[in-house]
């Protein structure tokens, strides 16, 4: 059964037609990499899946339930969809531990002890257990992004959306974040990631979706698609990034 399903999704910003009939079906445990030129609608696609943006036509379901931007619906959705941003978006006035504990305590209403245990376990998973009491701005970009991953994981999402989460990092810090993602993929968590890391998409990802001009232009098994692209646009794109 599909975990995330998009059916003929159209999205406009005013007159600007950004998503032009997206069909996409993601099953539990898949690692789907979304690639494509800047402006092709990759971020918009992710943001429609978690209700941050409204779409005008078509339908999106997550775990069988319709996605809308309605406030209450959105909060229910937040329980199954986690998101990690390019700029980390950690809360600067909270320690690493408080960042991770916040939503489990006030959204899931876990006790402080329980939330702390989860937070420590998640930070352990991303290799930052010892940073529990540090403030985000004392951490490197790579560490901040790993905290953001731990923060999302603490809500036990069914699917994790990642929007170019290594793009703001210095090159030497990219590896540590990808390693965490690879670990998560191995554990079977469903990942949908917009990425420019072609090696990661090929080696870790199960499927690659190439977006072009607001459409899913080409998609398929990651190794096959990247070594044997069918369309000229994808050939050109792969030529440009490699």
């Amino acid at each position: 059964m599909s975990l995330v399903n998009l059916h003929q999704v159209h999205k406009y910003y005013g007159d600007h037609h950004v998503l032009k009939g997206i069909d996409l079906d993601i099953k539990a445990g898949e690692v789907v990499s979304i690639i494509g030129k800047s402006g092709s609608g990759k971020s918009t696609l992710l943001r429609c899946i978690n209700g941050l943006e409204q779409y005008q036509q078509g339908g999106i379901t997550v775990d069988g339930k319709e996605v809308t931007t309605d406030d209450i619906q959105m909060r229910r959705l937040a329980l199954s969809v986690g998101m990690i941003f390019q700029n980390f978006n950690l809360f600067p006035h909270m320690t690493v531990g408080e960042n991770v504990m916040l939503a489990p305590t006030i959204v899931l209403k876990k006790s402080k002890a329980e939330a702390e245990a989860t937070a420590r376990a998640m930070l352990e998973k991303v290799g930052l257990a010892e940073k529990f009491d540090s403030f985000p701005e004392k951490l490197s970009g790579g560490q901040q992004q790993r905290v953001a991953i731990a923060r999302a994981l603490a809500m036990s999402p069914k699917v994790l959306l990642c929007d170019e989460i290594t793009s703001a990092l210095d090159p030497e810090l990219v590896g540590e974040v990808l390693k965490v993602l690879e670990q998560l993929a191995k554990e079977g968590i469903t990942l949908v990631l917009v990425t420019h890391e072609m090696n990661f998409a090929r080696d870790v990802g199960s499927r690659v979706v190439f977006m072009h001009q607001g459409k899913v232009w080409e998609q398929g098994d990651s190794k096959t698609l990247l070594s044997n692209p069918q369309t000229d646009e994808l050939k050109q794109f792969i030529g440009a990034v490699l």
Partner: protein
Amino acid sequence: MLYFSDLLQYSDVFLSGLKTTVELTVLTTILGVALGTVCATVRQYGNRASQRVVSVYVELIRNTPFIVQLFFIFFGLPALGMMLSPWQASMIALTINLGAYSAEIIRAGLASISKGQMEAAKVLGLNFRQTLTRVIFIPAFEKIYPALTSQCIIVMLGSAVISQISVQDLTYAANLVQSRNFRAFESYFVTALMYLGLSILLRFAFNALGKRLFAYRTAN
């Protein structure tokens, strides 16, 4: 010759004036900043209509003299059947005044917080109120804290005007004493020092609170 010792017999008058000014300052600072926070939030995140209402209030207050606002509340409102004591009228006037000025300052703080913070809270499932109180407010206040502190001090100093509707504040005490013993220089000199002391104390209190609220700036 100066005769500061002539003031000694009036020390009770000064102290009681000082007490009134301090009480009003503490109360109106808290209420005014609370009002300003609500207005700033509406102006930043509210719908068109409520934004419009807040804008009218803020501009009305910022473009009229405080003494006229005070007189309007104290002398004008009874015409609408609202009788207020001088103390109550002053409290309301000062709160409304600080509310408007601090709304503008606090709104700038809210505007400085990146949209990503709001979105991160949203995707974690926080509702709007939780997002504001847990995520947005503290960093927003940190950005504008010096300006907010100064504004509160300006309003405290501006409260001298309430002696005009015979609230027995510090300035009222000074007027009273110099009218009795004709020691205008001594009386106003001492009063000025007291206001200076209050300003310093208020700034000190704000700094101490800021150190606690924004501890993350200085931590480890």
